[in-house]
């Protein structure tokens, strides 16, 4: 990132997502799981999608995922990303089931370096003192 670029948007953690962002700060990906059905959900919510009214627990995810789709951004959608283009945006499917957005890092941003279905593992990118983003890289 260039020095005069405005800062990247920081998330604003909500009460139901504090555990998620705390985990990311510690280099861990945490998910909510329905206690009755064992289904995981992303993003964190104040209730279980699988069993509304049922109980949720927090579990550490394996960090394994596959690439569901991706794009390569050439025109920065915000000045904060001026120094980062081209960069890879993706939707990944976690081993536990849910999908989430992320950047694919550690690979040159060319279409031929990416294939849908490829195995990925989580890595963490610190963007500020308070926030670290889960990202993914080829496994």
């Amino acid at each position, binding site marked *: 990132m260039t020095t005069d670029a405005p800062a990247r*948007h920081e998330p604003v953690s909500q009460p139901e*997502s504090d555990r998620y962002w705390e985990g990311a700060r510690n280099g861990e990906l945490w998910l909510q799981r329905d206690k009755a059905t064992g289904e995981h959900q992303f993003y964190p919510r104040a209730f279980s999608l699988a069993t509304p009214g049922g109980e949720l627990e927090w579990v550490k995810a394996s960090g394994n995922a596959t690439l569901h789709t*991706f794009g390569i951004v050439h*025109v920065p*959608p915000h000045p904060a990303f001026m120094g980062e283009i081209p960069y890879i945006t993706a939707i990944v499917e976690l081993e536990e089931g849910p*999908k989430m957005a992320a950047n694919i890092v550690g690979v040159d941003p060319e279409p031929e370096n990416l294939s849908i279905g490829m195995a990925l593992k989580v890595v963490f990118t610190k963007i500020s003192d308070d926030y670290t983003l889960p990202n993914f890289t080829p496994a």
Partner: protein
Amino acid sequence: MPNLNRLRALSGQSAIVGVAESDQIGNVPDKSPLAHHAEAAINALDDAGLSLSDIDGLMTAGWSTLDVGEYLGIHPRFTDSTSVGGSSFVIHIAHAIAAIQAGYCEVALITHGQAGRSDRARAGANLGTPQSQYETPYGIIGPPVSYSMACRRYMHQYGEDRTREAMANIAVSTRKWANMNEKAYFYDRPATFDDYHESRWISWPFHLLDCCLVTDAGAAIVVTTAERAKDCAKGGVGILGAAEGHDHSMISQMPDLTRAFGRNTGQQALDMAGVSHSDLDLMMIYDSFTYTVLVSLENLGFCGPGEGPDLVANQRTAPGGDFPVNTSGGGLSYTHPGMYGIFTVVEAVRQLRGETGERQLDDCNLAIAHGTGGQLSSTGTVILAAP
């Protein structure tokens, strides 16, 4: 679930009696967004032979009806600021039918105005939303980034070359229509297949020519009862079917990146209207991107999943083709101020009235207008009939 029997009873009971754009559209640096709302509203009322004092229902998106109502100096008795992306104004037509037929109002005004190019205000981050936590920090900001990821998934499922050819066909055919519409931003600028393939990357797999314009523009629609429409200046374009819905907000949470909510709203609108795909003479399909058209035509049931490239092949959608799509030049080449949906209806009404000059279709009696909003999140579909 929607009650089709009750909806069918509403089919054709309401009509669009006025449509218009704001005075100038395209690059309009000296007009605010609210000025576009007001100009379009007054022009649409002129078109209908009505005045602001006739309006008792007000609908808008992007802005609150409080601001638009105050700016126009009207005191509506039915108000609806449903704002679910660029599809909203098509969805407002369903709400207008519901409000008018239930008795909450008799003449509904739907307004739109955005200075997409020239606005002095800049949108800030919407803090606290899931999107601001789980997508924005990754630079997944704005439609080109999210729609390009949906398109890449479609390519994976149905073939990259075949998809690319379809997108090129849509870009080129839409531009041909714009070259016949003097209000179009690209009225005097043709585009070839080479221009398409050589245009720069915005967000791969989207070329520049896969992406809609960013313009300044406003538009408005006036809806009333079929009975009252008979006394309006140009009669009424009957609203035979209308449907709406959404199934996610963020692109990463879309259930299936190749199946947007049009899979439901298309069939519902057609069922309500009691017509089938082959009855339609004009397809006005929100084209935020070439991909949006491709996937929307499939979702609406004009063909099966993955068959869209055959449907739009060989310039069938272009002037002279047997499957006319986006005859105004669309969001890709006519105008796209940010939330374009209302303009699909404006063009459909004009074609159904036979007012579109050089680009007028022969025997245009039935049209579908389909809006998509957010990150392929919401859709609104209407079926309209000639007066």
